[in-house]
């Protein structure tokens, strides 16, 4: 057992961090309008850069000999993109898509459940995606969004969102039979990985601030009561990271995927509360970068029925066959 990244994995993380340092970050996320109460936009430039650098298809390119995708490496990249506040559907592209298709479609993919589609629920990246995957009971249906009217949704939760105004024009261009369970497993891993990267960045942002910000003649971060709360946050992030990576490493077993999502999405709530409370008033302003990550944590908690859905999946995975 060894939790350290090997040399190749380390090189991948360093390379993607270099790219993200140039092409992503809080200023870029804010400039794209996803931090305001407006319809934000998608970072197509970053999407292309990740494609061109070969990161988007890393799961396939580094696949194991038996053909299973290199999901851990993909997870490391998604975690890095989330830390950098990237506004791209990397989680779907790198983690969900390779598990369902050998040759996933190009361009952003949006992901929703059948119920969400029927209810016209807002979906992340839908307004900019070229493909929509609808997760049904058993199958995943694939839709081309080119001729479909999608209304952008005004929100302040850090991601661009949209909803389909009329499903009349939405035609399936393919059905992935019996893929729904796989999609849900990988979707949960993706959420856990995204939440981990996002929480880490939020915590880093606030810890840095509290080391500098002085009240009562000393740095706020030097108060024991503050340190204890930040330490609790660090524990949550650390546990989320290893649960998410383990789930990816084992190719998203049902229970591990559900546990990773249930833990990370619950931790996201705590991280939101504590990072904002400890930052004080500046935490709610656009002058401070915390909002770039913190608001997203709440958005991630809404997907795939959130913490409740993930917890129900844990129960299903563990006790489905148990007789009462």
């Amino acid at each position: 057992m060894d939790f350290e990244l090997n040399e190749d994995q380390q090189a991948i993380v360093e390379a993607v961090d270099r790219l993200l340092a140039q092409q992503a970050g809080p200023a870029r996320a804010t400039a794209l309008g996803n931090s305001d109460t407006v319809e934000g936009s998608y970072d197509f430039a970053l999407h292309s850069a990740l494609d061109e650098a070969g990161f988007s298809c890393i799961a396939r390119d580094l696949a194991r000999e038996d053909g299973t995708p290199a999901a851990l490496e993909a997870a490391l990249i998604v975690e890095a993109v989330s830390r950098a506040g990237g506004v791209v559907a990397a989680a779907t592209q790198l983690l969900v898509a390779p598990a369902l298709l050998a040759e996933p479609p190009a361009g952003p993919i949006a992901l929703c459940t059948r119920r969400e589609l029927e209810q016209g629920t807002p979906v992340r990246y839908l307004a900019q995606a070229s493909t929509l995957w609808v997760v049904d009971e058993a199958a995943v249906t694939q839709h081309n969004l080119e001729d479909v009217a999608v209304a952008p949704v005004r929100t302040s939760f850090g991601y661009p969102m949209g909803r389909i105004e009329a499903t009349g024009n939405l035609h399936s261009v393919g059905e992935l039979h019996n893929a729904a369970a796989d999609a849900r497993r990988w979707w949960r891993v993706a959420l856990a990985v995204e939440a981990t990267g996002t929480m880490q960045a939020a915590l880093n942002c606030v810890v840095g601030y509290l080391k500098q910000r002085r009240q009562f003649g000393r740095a706020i971060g030097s108060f024991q009561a503050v340190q204890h709360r930040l330490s609790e946050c660090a524990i949550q992030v650390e546990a989320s990271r290893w649960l998410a990576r383990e789930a990816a490493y084992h190719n998203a077993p049902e229970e591990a995927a559900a546990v990773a999502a249930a833990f990370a999405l619950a931790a996201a709530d705590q991280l939101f509360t504590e990072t904002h409370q400890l930052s004080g008033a500046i935490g709610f302003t656009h002058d401070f970068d915390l909002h770039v990550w913190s608001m997203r944590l709440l958005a991630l908690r809404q997907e795939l029925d959130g913490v409740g859905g993930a917890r129900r999946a844990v129960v299903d995975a563990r006790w489905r066959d148990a007789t009462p």
Partner: protein
Amino acid sequence: MNFNFSSEQLAFRDEVREFLEDYRELDGFYGQGHRWPQVRAFFCAMAERNWLALNWPTEHGGLGLGHVHEYILWNEVARYRAARNPLAAGIVAKSIMRYGTPWQQETYLPPIRRGEMHFSLCYSEPEAGSDLAGLRLKAERDGDHYRINGQKCWQSYAQDMDYLWVLARTGTQESRGRGLSLFIVDKASAGVRVSPIPTVDGDQLNEVFFDDVVVPKAQRVGEENSAWSIIGEALADERHIQFPPGRVRRDLEDMVQWLNTQRMGNDPLVRARMAELAVRVRETEMLGLKVLESMVNASNATVDAAMNKILHTVTCQALARTVLDLGGPEALVYSHQPERLWRQSLTETIGGGTSEIMRSVIARQRLDLEG
């Protein structure tokens, strides 16, 4: 022990409710920053009944009623989401009545009572939030005037207010709370600049810059370097109406209604979570009344108020966050009921004294813990 309002007080509550029926759609409690002219008109309408001066002494033109009436009034106003209680008629006016000169009382109290003059509280600074005694805005004596230089930060609604209630340093930096004075500053004075700080909820806070602002000595309230006790007393005057539980009760009612419109009201899990919140709302109401009771009996309400502030604000946030969770992605849409409630509750545990400061007050003054 008596937990009831008197029949006269209940009749007053009914009168307030009848008045507020015309303002059901005002939405000034959450939306003051976007509809100040309407909120201002609402205050003028209240002033026609002299309700802004409800518990001012009659010699200052008030009705001379007590804390209970004031609580009932602002609790109902909060429950109708009409407005937050204006600082001018509360903290500012009560300080002027207690410490102001006859000229200040004649000049400022009548327009405040009529709802025509409004103030923004200028206490916090970039480096002085929870540690208010460390503030640096300097007011230097220059004959019959003071010259004020420096910066304030995090002022709510300063963009709309007429006057500033400014806490400034007149002593040395080392004198901390013993070196502060209070000033009334016309926002239109030369050298005053209000700059917005956009916030993540689509609203704004403000920075207020003072560049050699000349303020007549006559606009200093109280003795020089005596402001610390003045602002403490003013805060104590307002404890029973700062966090009225009517707001939380209304939040609960609105959230239950929203869940019903989403056809979630019959879900047992949803019902269980809302039941937990309903209990917390009741706790909030009881602590709100406990603060009032301490005020009525002239007890020190500091600890009661700190407890109430924490429970009230945390319950607001818990309500909003729970419904945000239950509502799924739909609840993230801007201005939908849960999203709006969530947005409005974001800063509640920070503004008006952070939860951390409140906990320290409880630890020191109720539990006798050192530190």
